[in-house]
């Protein structure tokens, strides 16, 4: 009942719903520009429509809608340091800079034929986009989106690799993996028109995604082609890749994988790392110092996202098709599932509010985003959204590797 009353109140506001915002975008702009901060804003990707909903996580509600952003399948976003602008990476190679306050596209470029994601440098001046086609990473001026240079992922003469798992690390650097080549590259972009690239070879077969720890010290690439992950200690004088959790599948046939796991937005909880097992209904637990296996947690399906609540006390897990109607919550001390919920068909993504009091969950085939209280697990709001996928909050601007 409380929720209904709340939603009714939201719907009454002129700028309170996506539909209203679409019709009255211009009416909303002045008001929001004059009154709103940006630390509690975020966006929801409506991937089939090529639009985003700008949301406020304090109320919580949809503030405005921005359209004409191209093919947003697998779209992700990073944010400017002032948390006013979102940089959106689309599958069609589109790179869009969106002003969250005025709900306008500042600049938009089609920078490649097919891209997978991007990152922003620690100083906020460089946008790096990881591309499938042409394989490599392109750098852009964050202010204007003017191209700076390209790091072609040419691992053999004339042969380029798809790039995945790009992450920013301190020192104006980016780390990414080469899917086809089985390599990890570390690009020092102190001089962004002439990056210095360090190549780590033979890191393992088919790295499908990567992540960096919140400290920026450890980079991990998940391997699709073998049981294990590649790890690089970026604090080492001479960084090198080594495999961890080797053979976690124990030679057993893996289950068909209907959706690749995503490592970014991953789970470090105290002295443990929680990582997805490929083709298994398991979460792998590693000791964060030794990186040795420290346990496994049986879960509902194949994990796609394992995200720690910002305090690390719980981790929330969502799953691959066809078991993707369920969310489970893991106690990171007891290392067991303590809660389960069924938000509905095709749960695709989740994002915690900056200190984790709530979590927003996209339920694609219900055309809805649900907001849950993370202490009581009660649903506190439902927001309509068309085929929602990724949810990204501006607090990411202040975090390494996000």
């Amino acid at each position, binding site marked *: 009942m409380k929720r209904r009353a709340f939603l009714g109140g939201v719907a009454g506001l002129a700028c309170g719903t996506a539909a209203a915002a679409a019709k009255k975008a211009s009416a909303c702009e002045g008001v929001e520009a004059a009154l709103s901060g940006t630390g509690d804003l975020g966006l929801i990707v409506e991937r089939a429509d090529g639009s985003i909903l700008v949301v406020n996580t304090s109320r919580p509600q949809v503030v405005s809608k921005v359209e004409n952003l191209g093919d947003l399948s697998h779209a992700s976003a990073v944010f400017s340091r002032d948390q006013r602008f979102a940089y959106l990476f689309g599958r069609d190679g589109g790179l869009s800079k969106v002003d969250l306050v005025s709900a306008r596209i500042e600049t938009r470029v089609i920078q490649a034929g097919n891209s997978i994601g991007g990152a922003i440098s620690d100083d906020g001046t460089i946008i790096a986009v990881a591309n499938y086609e042409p394989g490599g990473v392109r750098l852009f001026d964050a202010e204007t989106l003017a191209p700076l240079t390209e790091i072609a992922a040419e691992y053999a003469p004339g042969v380029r690799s798809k790039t995945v798992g790009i992450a920013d690390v301190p020192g104006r650097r980016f780390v990414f993996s080469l899917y086809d080549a089985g390599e990890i590259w570390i690009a020092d972009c102190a001089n962004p028109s002439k990056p210095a690239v360090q190549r780590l070879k033979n890191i393992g077969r088919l790295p499908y995604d990567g992540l960096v720890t919140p400290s920026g010290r450890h980079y991990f690439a998940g391997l699709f082609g073998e049981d294990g992950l590649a790890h690089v200690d970026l604090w080492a004088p001479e960084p090198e890749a080594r495999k961890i959790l080797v053979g976690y599948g124990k030679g057993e046939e893996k289950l068909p994988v*209907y959706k*690749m796991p995503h490592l970014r937005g991953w789970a470090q909880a105290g002295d443990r790392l929680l990582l997805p097992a490929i083709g298994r209904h398991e979460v792998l637990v590693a000791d964060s110092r030794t990186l040795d296996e420290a346990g496994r947690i049986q879960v509902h399906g194949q994990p796609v996202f394992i995200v720690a609540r910002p305090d690390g006390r719980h981790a929330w897990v969502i799953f691959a098709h066809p078991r993707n*109607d369920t969310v489970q919550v893991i106690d990171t001390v007891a290392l067991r599932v303590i809660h389960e919920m069924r938000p509905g068909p095709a749960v695709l993504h989740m994002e915690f509010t900056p200190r984790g009091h709530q979590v927003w969950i996209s339920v694609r085939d219900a055309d809805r985003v649900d907001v849950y209280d993370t202490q009581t697990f009660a649903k506190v709001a439902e927001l309509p959204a068309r085929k929602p996928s990724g949810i990204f909050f501006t607090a990411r601007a202040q975090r390494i590797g996000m």
Partner: protein
Amino acid sequence: MVVIAASFFHVRPLRGQGPLDQVRKTELENLVRQDCGSCHGMTMKGGLGRSLLPERLREADRDGLAAIILDGIPGTPMPPWRGLLTEAEAAWIAGRLQEGLAK
């Protein structure tokens, strides 16, 4: 009710036999765009997986495409969909990809 039906679709194995009705075709089209689309792109232009656009598939053998859908491609991330899709459904999807999905 719509939500419940859709939810059911996502967890049950898809084993309907006989000719495909319109409801099922709509479900399959959604599956292709949304779930095949996680690797092949929602517009089928390719991603981690290859392009599935008509210009690449038109000349291919339909039964061969259906077999790839059902059995996957070992050594790559393409999984076998047998168990989730019937042979008739895989053949129908192969045909739709060759023609091109409606915009």
